[in-house]
């Protein structure tokens, strides 16, 4: 298996792992967004709390979530390792810096990724940790005779604080730039560069990198202002 280890530590091997984990995380985002949009349903958090219980108790989802944590860890650790390797490969920096026609996002993937990683720690520390490790055990709500942890109130309390909303919005801007380069880059790393499909992938990447982070950012902003989106109230529609 030495050949496989050699592959994983090679320049192209690491690119492949970054690409595959990146694409995996890209598929996670819309799923996470769809669930979280229930926060805006205007039903006092019923749909969201039921969803949160399902997400933390269903065995298949639990199993998938471990895959997700592994994906995040691999992408982050390898990304930082590549950043360190690249710092050691470059010589003195140029006195005159010319962007050489490249985008700021493409040159700042490690920086943007680090911001996103810090955000994930803040985000999970605030909500996921409370949900998983007993922080909400005494804050229960009852729907149809079944008890649920009231994660909704925890979230809406957080999002009533301006500084938390600002942290979320800045993080989503970082995510937008990271995805703006990362989406199309993942396909190039897999060797998928094609006259017909690459422009399509790039277009899709741009649209994706704007829409998904924007929708995520709207959740804390709208919750802070107490604006509901009744159209999202699927349970009572």
């Amino acid at each position, binding site marked *: 298996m030495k050949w496989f280890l050699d592959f994983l530590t090679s320049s192209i091997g690491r690119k492949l792992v970054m690409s595959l984990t990146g694409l995996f995380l890209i598929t996670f985002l819309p799923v996470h967004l769809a669930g979280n949009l229930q926060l805006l349903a205007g039903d006092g958090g019923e749909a969201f709390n039921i969803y949160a219980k399902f997400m933390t108790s269903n065995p298949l989802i639990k199993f998938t979530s471990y895959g997700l944590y592994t994906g995040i860890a691999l992408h982050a650790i390898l990304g930082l390792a590549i950043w360190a390797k*690249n710092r050691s*490969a470059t010589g003195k920096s*140029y006195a*005159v810096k010319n*962007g*050489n026609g490249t985008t700021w996002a493409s040159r700042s993937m490690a920086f943007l990724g680090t911001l996103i990683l810090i955000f994930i720690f803040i985000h999970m520390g605030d909500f996921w940790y409370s949900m998983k490790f007993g922080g909400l055990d005494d804050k229960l709500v009852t729907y149809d005779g079944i008890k649920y942890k009231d994660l909704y109130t925890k979230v809406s309390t957080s999002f009533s604080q301006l500084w938390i909303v600002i942290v979320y919005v800045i993080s989503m801007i970082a995510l937008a730039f990271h995805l703006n380069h990362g989406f199309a880059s993942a396909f190039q*790393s897999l060797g998928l560069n094609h006259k017909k499909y690459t422009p399509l992938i790039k277009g899709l990447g741009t649209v994706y990198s704007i829409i998904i982070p924007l929708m995520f950012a709207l959740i804390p902003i709208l919750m802070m202002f107490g604006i509901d989106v009744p159209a999202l109230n699927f349970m009572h529609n």
Partner: protein
Amino acid sequence: MAGGNGKSINIKVKVWREGGDFGSGKFETYDLADIGTDMSFLEMFDVLNEKLVSQKKTPVAFEHDCREGICGTCSMVINGQPHGPMKGTTTCQLHMRSFKDGATIVVEPFRAKSFPVIRDLVVDRSSFDAIIQAGGYISVNTGQAQDGNAVPIEKDTSEKAFDAAACIGCGACVAACPNSAAMLFTSAKVSHLATLPQGEVEAKKRALAMVTQMDKEGFGFCSNIGACEAECPKEISIENIAKMNREYLGGVFGSEKTV
């Protein structure tokens, strides 16, 4: 000068000097008056060096050979761009008409750990030779020369191979890359040879060997930024990097080779 516009400009050239009296390196600024705009960038350096020699100063060391844009020797970064501001052009084919009167032009060597500076603007690019020696050739016995159309190759395919073969191995891709990666150079050769029937036979083995050597030489890792493609004097496309990735993955997972 026949065909010239007869104009001339006054410029300042801020050049990186390293080695000899200049030790670990610093910028020196030289004033040059009355530089004809029809001069090439290297001819401007010739004028500067004659001036320095007449003042009993050490001339600026820079590399040059063919001066017609095909050898890839003239390595320098001009105002932050390898081979200067003109797209798809080597330094020797860049002319002083690309600069304004009174301009300060900053000239630095190609910067990368795998391209150590020998002196002033001269860098050691033997890491590129090592990559080519690892597999940038065809070793299968192809016998006698084929009849003209015995092996049919579609025009688009031969064009694609030729576009990759246009790489002159100058190293501008490494110099431009914020990660100092050598992917564009390596992929140009991998892709050029893999596209044609003679080279295709060893394509996977070649990709494995060349990428392994490229990593050994200490180049950085590609993150698809695209500065290489933008600065390449032969406008080699990063499509070739995608092809190299495919060939390499084929070599790792689809062949019995282990480097």
